[in-house]
């Protein structure tokens, strides 16, 4: 039996530590710990709720839009502000471009090196690489000369003797299965994706002034004026620019990302049987298409239990509770925090330490549960709930992927399934996003230039005391913010974040969180080089800065929840 510690888990956002017991070449047990705490909800108390989006946005600079969206929705829900249609469409554009860019970065820059052996690419034959690339896609950058250039660049980089971020990795590990040509193709696309993401995210500069940390959000709408006849507004020049960026995104995702995922996955089909996890999936739903109180959603909400795709339950947020038994917070009031405030209280080993006390408290994350059960959230959950709810395009895309790999739907409940679902969602959104650019243009043409519910801007228009909830499907999954406003300032603020659902520790009943459950039975060829552990953990796309919060779940507030 080996006790394996992976800390830092790299190529993620934030600070994550995994401890695992490995025996007989498999993970026998695992513990997921978040090792950073900031206390942003404590900082929010007493402040203007209209400022909260900027504070919570800084929870994460990777998914740099998601907490701003959830925050303005929660305050709008509390004070009764109704963002006009242009604001809804602008937000859809911002959210979808975030999701598209984030997923591509995750695959190429955070996850690919778990599957792609960069050093092996040096042995590739550029001519065969070209043949491989052209057999899976008509993406133009695929000539022998092109791949020879990438190989030379890689060789020069290695020959200079400074491997930088590629040093000390697990190159040559027996779990790497790609032939040299596939590795070289992936390295080329790693570099191309680096350029592509920088270019595509200009969507956010157009819509939010800058990325990271866009600055156009407002409680009640958006600060980005729209007017086809003004040069200081989103006008037809901006529309044309966005049409170009979204068209290029569609091309890159359909001709590079999707073919790469299918090609890489075809060598790792055994990973369709690894990393299943808790088998429960929860989705709040996203992309409102109408402006009423219960808007039609492009991606539906719902809950799936025990991998039963045939039964999607309606979501009931009042069933959300959480445990702090294994979290560094004061015990006792987790279920009914109305009686008291949850306070951070570190009881772990004093740093520097070698091992966490996993039988006691071992994480800054809490353990959220739905109806007492751990839930996985994220792209896989969204695609499964959409698939099970009869979303036609999702069913087609999932079917195409499964057919291409020659596997059945059960393969989705796995490490590989998460990678495939993330890619399917990206394809889906690059097909869809253009329609929101058109919707914005059409709305302007009708003369509707409203961007804000100005009647609810002044705090004098608000109730003396109000509660609100805001929900969002962030790239990494279901995100909720809850706000309590009293006398115009924040009395209490709470977030339950995707990575809290996925990366949280065991609960009061000792049920493992999704990471911990997914790691069980993961093969580990060499405990000193736990590459396989990284594969399963990375398949969730961890975002630890997001996950750590002081969360006071108040049941009565949760019952008031509405989906976006």
């Amino acid at each position: 039996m080996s006790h394996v510690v992976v800390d830092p888990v790299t190529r993620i956002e934030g600070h994550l530590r995994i401890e695992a017991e490995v025996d007989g070449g498999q993970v026998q047990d695992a513990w997921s710990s978040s090792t950073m705490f900031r206390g942003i909800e404590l900082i929010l108390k007493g402040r203007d709720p209209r400022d909260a989006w900027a504070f919570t946005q800084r929870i994460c600079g990777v998914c740099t839009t998601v907490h701003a969206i959830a925050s303005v929705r929660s305050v709008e829900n509390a004070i009764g502000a109704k963002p006009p249609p242009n604001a809804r469409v602008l937000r859809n554009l911002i959210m979808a471009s975030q999701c598209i860019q984030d997923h591509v970065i995750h695959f190429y820059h955070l996850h690919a090196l778990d599957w792609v052996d960069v050093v092996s690419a040096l042995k590739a034959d550029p001519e065969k690489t070209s043949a491989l690339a052209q057999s899976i896609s008509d993406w133009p950058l695929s000539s022998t000369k092109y791949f020879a250039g990438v190989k030379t660049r890689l060789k020069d980089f290695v020959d200079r003797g400074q491997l930088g971020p590629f040093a000390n990795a697990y190159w040559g590990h027996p779990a790497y299965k790609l032939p040299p040509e596939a590795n070289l193709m992936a390295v080329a696309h790693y570099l191309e994706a680096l350029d592509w993401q920088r270019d595509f995210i200009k969507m956010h500069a157009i819509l939010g002034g800058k990325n990271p940390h866009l600055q156009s959000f407002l409680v009640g709408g958006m600060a980005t004026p729209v007017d086809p006849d003004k040069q200081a507004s989103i006008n037809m020049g901006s529309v044309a620019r966005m049409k170009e960026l979204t068209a290029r995104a569609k091309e890159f995702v359909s001709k590079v990302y999707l073919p790469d995922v299918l090609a890489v996955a075809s060598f790792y089909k055994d990973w369709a049987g690894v990393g299943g996890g808790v088998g429960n999936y929860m989705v709040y739903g996203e992309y409102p298409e109408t402006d009423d109180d219960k808007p039609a959603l492009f991606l539906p909400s719902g809950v799936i239990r025990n991998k039963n795709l045939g039964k999607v339950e309606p979501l009931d947020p009042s069933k959300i509770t959480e445990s702090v038994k294994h979290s560094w917070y004061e015990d006792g009031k987790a279920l009914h925090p109305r009686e008291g405030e949850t306070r951070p209280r570190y009881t772990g080993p004093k740093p520097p330490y070698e091992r966490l006390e996993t039988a006691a408290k071992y994480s800054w994350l809490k353990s959220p549960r739905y109806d007492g059960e751990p839930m996985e959230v994220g792209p896989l959950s969204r695609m499964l709930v959409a698939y099970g709810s009869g979303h036609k395009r999702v069913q087609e895309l999932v079917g195409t992927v499964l057919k291409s790999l020659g596997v059945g739907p059960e393969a989705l409940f796995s490490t590989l399934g998460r990678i495939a679902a993330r890619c399917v969602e990206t394809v889906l959104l690059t097909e869809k996003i253009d329609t929101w650019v058109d919707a914005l243009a059409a709305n302007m043409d009708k003369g509707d230039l409203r961007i804000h519910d100005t009647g609810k801007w002044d705090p004098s228009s608000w109730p003396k005391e109000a509660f609100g909830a805001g929900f969002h499907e962030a790239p990494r999954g279901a995100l909720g913010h809850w706000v309590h406003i009293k006398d115009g300032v924040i009395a209490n603020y709470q977030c339950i974040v995707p990575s809290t659902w996925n990366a949280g520790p065991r609960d009061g009943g000792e049920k493992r969180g999704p990471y911990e459950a997914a790691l069980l039975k993961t093969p580990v060829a060499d405990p000193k080089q736990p590459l396989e552990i990284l594969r399963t953990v990375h398949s969730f796309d961890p975002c630890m800065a997001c996950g750590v919060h002081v969360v006071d779940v108040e049941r009565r507030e949760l019952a008031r929840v509405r989906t976006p």
Partner: protein
Amino acid sequence: MGSREGWLGEELRRRGISRRELLFFCAGVAGTFGLPASAATQIANALTKAKKPILVWLEFQDCCGNTESFLRSSAPTVGEVVLDLLSVDYHETIMAAAGFQAEEALKGVVRDSAGQFIAVVEGSIPTGADGAYCTIGGRSALDIARDVCGKAAATIAMGTCATYGGLPAAAPNPTGALGVADAVPGVKNLINMSACPTNAANITALLTYYLTYKRWPPLDGFRRPLFAYGKTIHDNCERRAHFDAGQYVEVWGDDAHRSGACLYKMGCKGPVTYQNCPTVRWNDGTNWPIGCGHPCIGCAEPDFWDRMTPFYKHLPAVAGFGAGSNVDTVGAWLTVGTAAAYAGHGILKGIQNAGKKPENGAGPPGDKGPAGKAGGQS
């Protein structure tokens, strides 16, 4: 490839980047610094001869926003080459190695290249709970920062959290978060790149400056490079003429807002914020916050989460408000407004940076009172 000397020149040729294109890029860099056009040739010459200095990038109480910004470095192709100028031996977000192997990479740099590497710090450093609010590999952020920054040739505090403590240090600062200057006093060659996050253009410009001249740029009183922090947003704002003419946005989405009028009344902190956003803009010059209709929130300034909030409350009344107004006077009055804001919040906090001020920045309140009511929503 033979000698490492000149590898970049070869690489540029191989990648089809002409000398002319390189000079064009370098002219842009020179412009960011406010250097004469002739400096472009000198920068280009230095770039093509450069070897790769080692850089380690530490993340503590951060959101990864500065790292993401770094990944958005503009000037495609050449920008990528500029990244290749450095050997980034430790950066948790991008490095292939994890766990023990990652820690070894960092230890190797500190052991073998002491006094020769550049350290970047992103995020604040918590001092509460014996360091348990942020640990990596079981070590506290403070322990790592002392070790690594203490042995670095220079330390770049990237972003407002690493510079001043930023968001985690906002009142009531639950974790005792500090910026590098306060957490690890006496660090050699500290450069503060406050902003939330730091603009990729400024990150690239700072590194290029160092690689070209083998020294760091001149700094203001907060140790921020003058090329990026020498003037206020207001000094260079494209909407400045509307401020001077008294044309203000009063309602989100009104004709003035759509026409690009001044955002002062909506809470803009541009007059008291030292940063080059209006000139370098963001994301390869695509846009900037005021360009998309939202006020500046002052994210490059010390304690902006406390001093610049509420964000939508406009700066205190300004002497000679409107035509011919004196921006420095606006800055002077910020301190008064800040005191009021603290009182309004019921939040009081020791200002860690008391006594520090930019050379030509917001000073203590002068003896001039507000000459007239500015109006607005407060």
